[in-house]
């Protein structure tokens, strides 16, 4: 029982961590209709910037205070993500207005390669450390009820809370503000949005900035968990089933999807895995998402896919 709970909670938290990355996908898709494959690379890029500036800042200035260094690094990394957003809009998106989804998808893959190359050449391809003081040791809850208690990772718990806060804020932004409405309009029809005066350029910079900041937060959390190095970009692959299960266009969907995927894959790995040799969680997550899609092709909370004649 305790173990089941542990796995379950562990799954929930892993799910929230995926959701954090998934959120970046959802944001950009929802607001521009672009499936941004570069989200993983952005997470890596942001984390690299954060890690390196936190390391360089004390060296340059001699101020040896971890908090100051982290804050400064976070701000600089944020600014860098802003610059990335701006450049991406200028050099890529602007020239691909009104193109099909597949083309845009490929363009973001191009951006992925570019960012991976740039990130590694600016910041190095070694493994770096982000230390924002996340507690690494576990805590135990329900010790009075269950023997040995239930282990919960403090680090994951904090990360999950941050993810939840981000989701609430972003959901409000999309549903309640005029800009949010404009963003959704852009996703539906670039040209029509242009025709009524929505400045695509600004919109895209805004969205990519927000997605960049989300990537930065994800990068900091995942980076402090895993260490910052290239493989960070591959967490995007783990976040994809979350995105489609929750629905490409739904911010809250990212969280719910994350929770379902997280729990599903952990339980499957722990309880089914041993019978088939283990290592099943990654495809299990995708198959799980696929099963949900068979019932709701637009994901749990996604906007209905409309085809009308």
């Amino acid at each position, binding site marked *: 029982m305790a173990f089941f709970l542990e796995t379950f909670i562990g799954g929930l938290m892993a799910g929230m961590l995926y959701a954090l990355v998934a959120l970046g996908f959802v944001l950009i898709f929802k607001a521009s209709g672009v499936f941004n494959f570069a989200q993983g690379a952005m997470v890596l890029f942001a984390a690299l910037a954060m890690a390196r500036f936190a390391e360089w800042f004390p060296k340059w200035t001699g101020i040896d205070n971890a908090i100051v260094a982290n804050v400064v690094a976070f701000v600089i990394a944020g600014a860098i993500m802003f610059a990335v957003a701006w450049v991406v809009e200028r050099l890529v998106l602007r020239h691909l207005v009104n193109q099909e989804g597949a083309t845009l998808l490929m363009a973001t893959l191009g951006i992925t*390669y570019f960012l991976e190359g740039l990130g590694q050449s600016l910041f190095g391809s070694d493994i770096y450390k982000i230390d924002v003081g996340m507690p690494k040791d576990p805590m135990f809850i329900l010790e009075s009820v269950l023997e040995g208690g239930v282990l919960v990772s403090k680090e994951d718990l904090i990360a999950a809370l941050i993810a939840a806060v981000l989701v609430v804020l972003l959901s409000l932004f999309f549903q309640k503000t005029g800009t949010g409405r404009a963003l959704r309009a852009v996703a539906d029809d670039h040209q029509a949005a242009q025709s009524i005066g929505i400045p695509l350029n600004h919109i895209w910079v805004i969205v990519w900035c927000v997605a960049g900041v989300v990537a930065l937060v994800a990068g900091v959390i995942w980076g402090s968990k895993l260490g910052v190095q290239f493989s960070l970009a591959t967490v995007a692959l783990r976040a994809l089933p979350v995105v489609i299960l929750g629905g490409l266009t739904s911010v809250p969907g990212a969280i719910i999807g994350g929770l379902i995927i997280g729990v599903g894959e952990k339980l499957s790995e722990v309880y089914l895995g041993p019978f088939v040799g283990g290592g099943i969680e990654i495809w299990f997550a995708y198959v799980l998402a696929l099963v949900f899609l068979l019932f709701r092709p637009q994901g749990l909370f996604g906007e209905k896919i409309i085809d009308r004649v």
Partner: protein
Amino acid sequence: MFYRENGQFKTSYRADQQIFPVAQDRIAVLVLVAAAFILVPLFASDYLYRAILIPLVIMSMAALGVNILVGYCGQISLGSGAFMAVGAYGAFNFFVRFPGLPLIPALILGGLCATFFGILFGLPSLRVKGLYLAVATLAAQFFSDWMFLRIKWFTNNSDSGSVSVSHLQVLGMPLESAFSKYMFCLALLAVIALLAKNLVRGAIGREWMAIRDMDVAAAVIGIRPMYAKLSAFAVSSFIIGVAGALWAFVHLSAWEPAAFSVEVSLRLLFMVIIGGLGSIMGSFFGAAFIVLLPILLNQVLPPLFSLFGLDISTAGLSHTELMIFGALIVWFLIVEPHGLAKLWSTGKQKMRVWPFPH
């Protein structure tokens, strides 16, 4: 001036339905094919064969398969690597379990395994569409990665899970030299490309494209979405499977599941989009672009840097290569979102009106 279709009157629909109705096109393609079969062997070196031409030919075939599914039928798939893997391991199993089974039947059986796998993972496409489907096809990718690592039977119980083949023969002739490998792959590619072209310009091809462009309207004129989609999955995964088997048998000789990772799937999708969705020719262009570009950069950059007196570390070089690769992809998409094939046909259009600009 040289490229004109006026003056070439078609007197029968058969003539008009040829693959290349314009005589100049026909000649150009003939020359190309002849060059591939005759001219290339005259000067190609071992390196050119083994590191460039053979991978290029095999990847072109895989891209062709992907293009049928993605470009013609509009079902974006990120699981092509898995289809290649199934083709490779399928062929491998037939090859080692039936001693004496000739290579070509083994390849075809491998392709059929991939067909079966493709249909299985194509079933969700009946309900799931677009990007949702694209992501869902990754299930096939990760499942096959797992399957070939975990299920020992597929790898003939090898401890490490890596397998190898050797002593390949085609029609009694050994397939060892680079030249023979190249010719074999090229011949297969030519046959498959021809068959594929016939399919896409025939009734079934029209069904695929109809489903791609407007599925409700397609249903109204009597096209069954299920048949169209699954047949696209079947044909496409067959071709990809054969390509996968060739990749494993002829190019790598020994392989592990990582040889068909998700990276391969992505690159295949790349090839068809850069090359041009819905164009057989485009598959070749795309494969050439994606296969050759990194190699080219890798060889051209160092002398280029030293030319400008820049001393760049080897790591820096690799990163620069990655950046240029990414940037070029974006640049090509901007220049022509519909791919190199479209660029090609625009070029032809320009030639048609030459010397006038429009």
